[in-house]
C-alpha cells in the first residue's frame, strides 16, 4: 500500500491540482482567523470548509490518472486497492491542511469564551477542534468517494453533486459535521468545550462504508 500511496501523492503534487483547494482554504483561514479571536469559534470556522476541500482533493486524486495508466496500476495492485490509495492520499492531504488550520487557530486565538470572560481549557478545546476538523475531512472524503468515478462518472454531474452534498452535510441538522461544528460554536459564548466523540465515530463509519463501496465498484464500472 505504501508504494501506491507514494505514487498517488506524487501524482497529486505533480499535477498541481492540490493548489486551488489549498489556496482557497489558506485564504479563507487568513481572512477569518485573527489574533485574539475566541478560540472555539475559530476551530469551528477552520473545520467547516475542510468538508468541500476534502471532496475536491478526492476528485483531484481519483481523476489524476488517464484511463490507460489507471489500467496498468489496477492490473499491478488490484483496482480496489488502487482506488483506495487515491482516496486515502487525498484524505491525508486534507488532514494535513486541517492540522495546519487548527494549529494556526490554536496559536493565535484567545483561549477564552466569546465575551473574553471565561477561560477555555486549551487541551480539551484543541482536541475538540481537531476532532471537528477530522469529522469534516472524513465526510468530505465520503462525498468525494461517492460523487466521483466509479460511482458518478460524468464530470457534469459529479461536480454539482459533490458541491450540493458538501453544502447539505454542513448545514443539515443531524449531519455529524454540522453537529461537531455547532457544538464548538454554541459552546463559545459560555466557554464550554464539547468534544465531538459521537459525530466523529459516525463520520468514520459513514466514510468507511462510502469508500469501501466506491472501491468495490471500481472494477465493475470502468
Amino acid at each position, binding site marked *: 500500500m505504501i*508504494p*501506491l500511496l*507514494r*505514487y498517488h501523492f*506524487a*501524482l497529486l*503534487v*505533480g*499535477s*498541481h491540482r492540490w493548489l486551488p483547494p489549498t489556496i482557497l482554504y489558506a485564504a479563507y483561514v487568513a481572512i477569518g482567523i485573527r489574533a485574539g479571536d475566541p478560540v472555539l469559534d475559530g476551530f469551528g470556522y477552520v473545520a467547516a470548509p475542510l468538508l468541500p476541500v476534502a471532496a475536491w482533493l478526492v476528485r483531484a486524486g481519483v481523476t*489524476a*490518472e*488517464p484511463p*490507460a*495508466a489507471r*489500467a*496498468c*496500476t*489496477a*492490473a*499491478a*495492485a*488490484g*483496482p480496489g486497492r488502487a482506488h483506495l490509495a487515491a482516496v486515502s492520499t487525498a484524505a491525508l492531504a486534507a488532514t494535513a491542511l486541517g492540522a495546519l488550520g487548527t494549529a494556526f487557530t490554536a496559536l493565535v486565538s484567545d483561549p477564552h469564551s466569546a465575551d473574553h470572560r471565561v477561560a477555555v481549557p486549551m487541551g480539551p478545546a484543541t482536541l475538540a477542534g481537531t476532532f471537528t476538523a477530522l469529522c469534516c475531512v472524513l465526510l468530505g472524503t465520503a462525498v468525494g468517494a461517492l460523487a466521483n468515478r466509479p460511482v458518478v462518472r460524468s464530470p457534469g454531474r459529479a461536480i454539482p453533486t459533490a458541491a450540493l452534498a458538501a453544502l447539505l452535510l454542513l448545514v443539515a441538522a443531524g449531519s455529524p459535521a454540522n453537529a461537531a461544528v455547532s457544538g464548538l460554536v454554541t459552546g463559545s459564548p459560555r466557554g464550554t468545550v464539547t468534544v465531538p466523540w459521537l459525530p466523529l465515530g459516525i463520520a468514520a463509519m459513514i466514510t468507511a462504508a462510502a469508500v469501501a463501496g466506491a472501491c468495490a465498484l471500481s*472494477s*465493475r464500472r*470502468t
Partner: protein
Amino acid sequence: MKLHKVGRRYGLRGPWVLRDVDLEVPRGALLRFEGTNGSGKSTLLRLCAGIDAPSTGRVTGRPRTAYVPERFPAALPFTALEYLSHLGRVHGLRGAEPARRATEWLERFGAAGHARTPLAELSKGTSQKVAVAQALLAEPELLVLDEAWTGLDRTARGTLDRAVAERVTAGGTVVFVDHDPARLAGAADACYRVVDAGLRPQETATRAAGATTGPCVTVVAQGPPGADPPAGLPGAPTTAPGPDGTTRLTVPAAHSDTLLHALLTARPPWHIHAVTPEEARPDRTAPRPESP
C-alpha cells in the same frame, strides 16, 4: 488461472460482451485471442488482468499480473524513469531495483535517451515503450498484452517478441491480442477466437505438424557425443540430425535467444556451430517441384 462461466456486460441492461466463458490458462502458456473489432477481446483481456470484474461467474487463481494497453497517452507529471520506478515499487520491487530495471528496459527498447523526458512530451511510440517497460520490469507471472505492439518501431516489436519468449521460458503466462496474424506465429500454445460473446478454440498450426507459418531460426549445435538435446528447451524446437554429429534445432524466431541461452547454459553446455534465420520452418515434406 481459470475463468468459470465468466460473463461481462457494461451497465445493468447492456448487451453481453462475453457470456459463459470457460477458460483454463495454464502456467507458462502463451495464449492468443483473436476477433473482429468490438468482439470483446479487450474486455476479455481486462478480465484476465483483473482490471474488470466479471458481471457473472468468476476468475480464480490469477497470479501477479501486469497489463500493457494498446495506447498509452499518459499525461502524468513524471519523467519516464520516475513513472517506471513508481510502478516497479507498486509491483513489489524495493530499493534501487525499480530504477535499475527501468533503465535496463528503456535501454533494451532503445529509449534510454528519454529516461528523463516528461511522459507528456514523449512521442506515441516512446510512450508505448514506457507502457511495455512498466509491465516487463516487474517480471509478472501473468502478462496481458492488448495490442501492445501497436505504435512500436520494427526493432522494438522484435524486442517485445523476444521479451515475451523470455517470460514464457521463465515460467510466466502471457495472453495477447494483436492484429498482425504473424505475431509470435508458431510460438503461441493456443489461440481462441472471440465470436458471439463466446470463445472458440482456433486451430493453431501446431509444432507437431511441423508446418508453422512465420519466421524461424535454425540453430546447429553439438552436445556431448551421443547425448540428446536437453528436455524442455524453450520454444519446443523441432530437432533433426545435422552433419558431423550435430543437431539442427528449429524454433519460432522469437524464441531463438532463449533457446541459445538454454543450450549454452545446459549442463554440460552445448557448442553452437551456426545460427540461421529462415523465412519458413523447413518441414520434412520435400518442396514441390516447380511446374514448367
